[in-house]
């Protein structure tokens, strides 16, 4: 599918011993060296740099930076937005996956493409469409104004924009997974007398739990880290509509390097946790597949 969520590392079970046809050892080492070097310089160094700069003036400066009231508000706002968007998109993802995977209907491909849409839209444009909709000069602008409802340049706008950019994550994980699992198990449950809801809770949900978790983790990472879309709708009001990424930008603009990097370090830690969970989940899924306890999208034929 387009706009993909890159799938992480897969267990290297098919590295066979190909004694007869391998590259000479020297070439192998050079290539490995290049890759390791590149990854080290390009990926690890920037990561380490975040922490290095955050602690450039010592531990107390770091803590102080994090305790700045505006930074604290930013953290809270980021958490709040995530706490709203992730569950909403989670529910949607599950519901949409059920509709797509368990039924046959025309226009399925179209629906899936539409779900994928936010992936292909640039973040700034994602924010812009809400400004067009709810901004002062937007479609609903005057009406909202009359009701004294603030969406743009306020938290609701941030929530909406984040909702848009994180929209597909859970659905994209679940749809191929549930499609691969087919409908047999659910139909069997029905024959045994289960209601739709019971079937879903006891049959479907357990079999997609890892995919679900995976989607949630990615959704959360994006929700907390989104910059462009939120930047457009938020108005950058410190302490009110600044999420953590925006806060970092503000601090950077004010040349508060240590503070900026300290705030950045929180997001870097989030990234590491996301990576770790992602890897752990993939390994979990791989083990379960190997033991035949669950299915991979490629292990099924229709």
């Amino acid at each position: 599918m387009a706009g993909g969520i890159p799938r992480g590392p897969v267990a290297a079970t098919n590295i066979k011993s190909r004694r007869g046809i391998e590259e000479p050892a020297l070439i192998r080492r050079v290539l490995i060296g290049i890759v390791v070097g590149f990854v080290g310089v390009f990926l690890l160094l920037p990561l380490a740099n975040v922490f290095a700069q955050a602690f450039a003036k010592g531990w107390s400066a770091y803590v102080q930076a994090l305790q700045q009231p505006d930074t604290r508000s930013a953290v809270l706002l980021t958490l709040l937005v995530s706490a709203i968007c992730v569950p909403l998109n989670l529910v949607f993802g599950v519901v949409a996956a059920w509709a797509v995977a368990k039924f046959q209907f025309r226009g399925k491909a179209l629906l899936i493409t539409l779900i994928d849409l936010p992936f292909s839209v640039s973040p700034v444009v994602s924010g812009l469409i809400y400004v067009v909709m709810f901004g002062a000069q937007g479609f609903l602008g005057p009406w909202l104004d009359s009701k004294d409802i603030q969406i743009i340049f306020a938290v609701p706008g941030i929530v909406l924009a984040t909702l848009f950019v994180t929209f597909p994550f859970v659905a994209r994980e679940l749809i191929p997974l549930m499609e691969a699992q087919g409908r047999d198990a659910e139909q069997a449950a029905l024959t045994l007398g289960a209601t739709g809801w019971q079937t879903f809770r006891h049959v479907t949900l357990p079999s997609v739990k890892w995919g679900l978790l995976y989607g949630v983790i990615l959704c959360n990472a994006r929700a907390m880290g989104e910059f462009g879309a939120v930047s457009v709708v938020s108005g950058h009001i410190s302490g009110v509509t600044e999420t953590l990424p925006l806060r970092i930008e503000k601090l950077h603009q004010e040349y508060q390097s240590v503070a900026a990097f300290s705030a950045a370090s929180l997001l870097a830690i989030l990234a590491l946790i996301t990576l770790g969970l992602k890897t752990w989940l993939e390994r979990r899924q791989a083990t379960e597949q190997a033991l035949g306890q669950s299915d991979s999208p490629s292990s099924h034929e229709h």
Partner: protein
Amino acid sequence: MSIELRQVSKRFGSVSAVEDVSLTVADGELVALLGPSGGGKTTVLRMIAGLEVPTSGDLLVRGERVNDVPVQKRNIGFVFQSYALFKTMSVFDNIAFGLKIRKTPPAEIQTRVDELLKLFGLDGLGRRLPHQLSGGQRQRVAIARALAPRPSVLLLDEPFGAVDAKIRQELREWLVRLHRELHVTTIFVTHDQEEAMEVSNRIVIFSRGRLEQIGTPREVYEQPKNEFVARFIGVLNVLELTILNGAARLHELSFPAHGLPEGQTLRIGFRPYAVQISRNLQEHPYLAVIRHVYFLGVQLRLELETPSGLILRTRIVKDEFLRQGLEQGSSVSFQIREYRVLSTGANSLSPEVATVHSAATFAEGI
């Protein structure tokens, strides 16, 4: 091209796939490497090709040691079980691949590939892609590709494994014809003993990494070296006898004791054709009922059951069956004309396996 293996072994980690195998293949021979799955035959084939490197032992081609010669330089043709056609290339380009590598002039490539397309019945398919071909066609492309650079030996890994049984028969005959026409030394791996028997000049039998026997089809059938070969090639009836009162017995059957002490066990084997039956219940010493008749065309396969519950397999020509007025459920008398001793005692492999003993008129009085 004579190929020689001298005490070749191959280990993968702690697993020994091939142990101490020595054999020679003469120029122009068509040899089958036969054995059950995991027996090591594919590994031996791949070592000859250079796709695996022996852990120990020597691999010689025309007297020269080639263990360290890379696969690219060995000038062999290899046909994989899955055909391994290059999916993004046309049939023509697939077959031409080896020639292009050798920088053959385009005109020559054209001639050679056309020649092969014709020979293999692939006329007009030159522009097609592999996924547009049938299984049989793909296989022929694979063989044509391997033969295009005129290799000195052709190696095939279970070439007929993925094909329908009927087509398999045709392909076997085709392979024999091809070999006769091209005179390329050919070695192929199979687990189907009928195939090996039908197609090859000589059969090399592997089991669990070891070489059990090498011989012509007739040799391995009529003179198996040990119980494994005897059981693997053709059908074998096996009986486990115990020495009692001076004779080797199992229920009502008795055989010579072969000088073994009381209580010793003796395993014998005999082919279906060694069992003679007759409608006349007095003619032979033992009685049985025809439990089942399998109709195979000209021959019939019979399952006999003795009163004590032993099941023996035998064959009879249809005409003879009808002439004697036999049918399923008929009672017959039978005798075992000849047999081989497979082993005495618990585990020993007797050298007497190749020796055939005539069953005596041992039934009376013992």
